[in-house]
């Protein structure tokens, strides 16, 4: 299906989980497609990178669930920072491991999972709804009960997929994309290349088959669809472009120009504009 069809399943007010981590293997083509809709008031659940930044800058986020938002090689995500300093959206700030436990609870249809992390920290203060549980065994430990992070929709990007929704990652880290898909009512998997299932094992062992078709609603072939985040081994992060993004994001006029140049059209227009920008840099 197309990226437009995929995000067509997203309605205002829904909870959308986004795979990847920071500025790594983010489903950016799907995020860009979402930017082109009039959907708003989203709850976004993400180990945040430019996905969070772009959606926040477009005013589509009502609530954000995250442990951070970063561009990795640039520590602070500029749009996230600006949006937070304007108090544009509600923030559910969780620790990285608490976030993982929340997703894991949702995948296993549990109301919560216990964890030590969070005790003593202000994560408990800024999330007054968080509760603790006491172990029923003789240790009697009091632990944080991380509520399940159930998702209406998950968006993830992998290296390869077949048309049925089986997805394969070829880089060093799966991140948590399988959990995002399994925690969601609908999951959309974009990939660098759609291949017949018969080709999977020539590329890597069966443990690279991260996402199963039973957990995927639709597959979208989006070459360079993670740009400008990394998608190892197909490509690394486009550091020059990311720097241009961060620079533009820091200034409203520059951001308008950036938006006009790169984000006003469809995905093909975006990729063509990026190619033209890269060519400028080498001339």
């Amino acid at each position: 299906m197309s990226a437009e069809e995929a995000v067509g399943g997203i309605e205002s007010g829904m909870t959308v989980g986004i795979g990847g981590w920071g500025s790594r293997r983010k489903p950016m083509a799907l995020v860009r497609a979402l930017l082109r809709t009039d959907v708003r008031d989203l709850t976004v659940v993400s180990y945040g990178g430019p996905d969070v930044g772009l959606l926040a800058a477009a005013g589509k986020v009502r609530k954000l669930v995250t442990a951070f938002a970063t561009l990795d090689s640039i520590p602070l995500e500029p749009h996230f920072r600006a949006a937070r300093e304007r108090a544009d959206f509600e923030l559910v700030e969780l620790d990285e491991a608490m976030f993982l436990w929340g997703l894991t609870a949702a995948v296993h249809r549990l109301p919560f999972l216990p964890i030590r992390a969070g005790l003593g920290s202000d994560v408990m203060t800024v999330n007054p709804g968080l509760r603790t549980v006491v172990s029923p065994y003789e240790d009697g430990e009091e632990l944080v009960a991380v509520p399940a992070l159930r998702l209406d929709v998950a968006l993830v990007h992998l290296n390869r997929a077949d048309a049925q929704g089986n997805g394969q990652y070829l880089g060093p880290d799966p991140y948590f994309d399988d959990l995002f898909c399994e925690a969601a009512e609908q999951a959309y998997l974009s990939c660098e290349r759609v291949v017949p299932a018969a080709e999977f094992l020539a590329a890597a062992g069966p443990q690279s088959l991260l996402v199963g078709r039973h957990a995927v609603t639709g597959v979208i072939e989006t070459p360079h669809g993670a740009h400008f985040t990394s998608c190892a081994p197909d490509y690394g992060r486009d550091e020059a472009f990311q720097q241009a993004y961060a620079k533009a994001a820091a200034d409203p006029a520059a951001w308008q120009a950036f938006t006009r140049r790169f984000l006003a059209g469809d995905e093909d227009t975006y990729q063509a504009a990026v190619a033209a920008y890269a060519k400028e840099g080498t001339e």
Partner: protein
Amino acid sequence: MTVTRAEYCVLACAEAWRGDGEVLAAPMGLVPRLGARLARLTFAPDLLLTDGEALLVGADDQTVEGWLPYRRHLALVMGGRRHVMMGASQLDAHGNQNISCIGDWKQPRRQLLGVRGAPVNTLNNPTSYWVPRHSPRVFVERVDMVCGVGYDRAAAAGPSATRFHRIPRVVTDLAVLDFDTPDRTLRVRSLHPGVSAERVREATGFPLAIADGVPATREPTAEELRLIREVLDPAGLREREVRP
């Protein structure tokens, strides 16, 4: 050749991992990373180190000896076989650390990284800190948001919080500090050569215990200095992280 401040810092970071055994050394920042690699090449050969991404690498920083994607990394944190050295935008006398935001959390004056893994780190594995610019802006009476949990907050949260909680070391560009005091508050363990106690007091935003006759941070051996200069950081990037 004179030992630079940055080189004392690398050595002091390395010392934080001495005696840790077969655990993951998880450095955040260049100087801690150089320190972890120095420790591994010399007095702590059993340490595990990553390439900064998902792979565990050998002492040459290249040979892949294991796989540690984020989900396994977080499991390792919770299992405790790791000693992390994090940064700190703010740190108080009890070891509470903030990397999330400055000002009121609801609408911060300055949004920073977010809590990241500071809560899970501090409650589950030893957590040290690296502060490249020791100043009253970092060492504050009270942090704006407790991300990494200090000794007082862990004690108040109860036995589940204190069970695996430990802050072995705080290394700064001026000194090495720890919490080996009766009330578990910060004290100076050693001053880097050339740094006076008065200078450290002035750079700290709360009263700080500095004993008379506090030792100097130890000198590197000739071999340690050679490793830092010729093997680990021949480009001298350490001198950019620590101002002279």
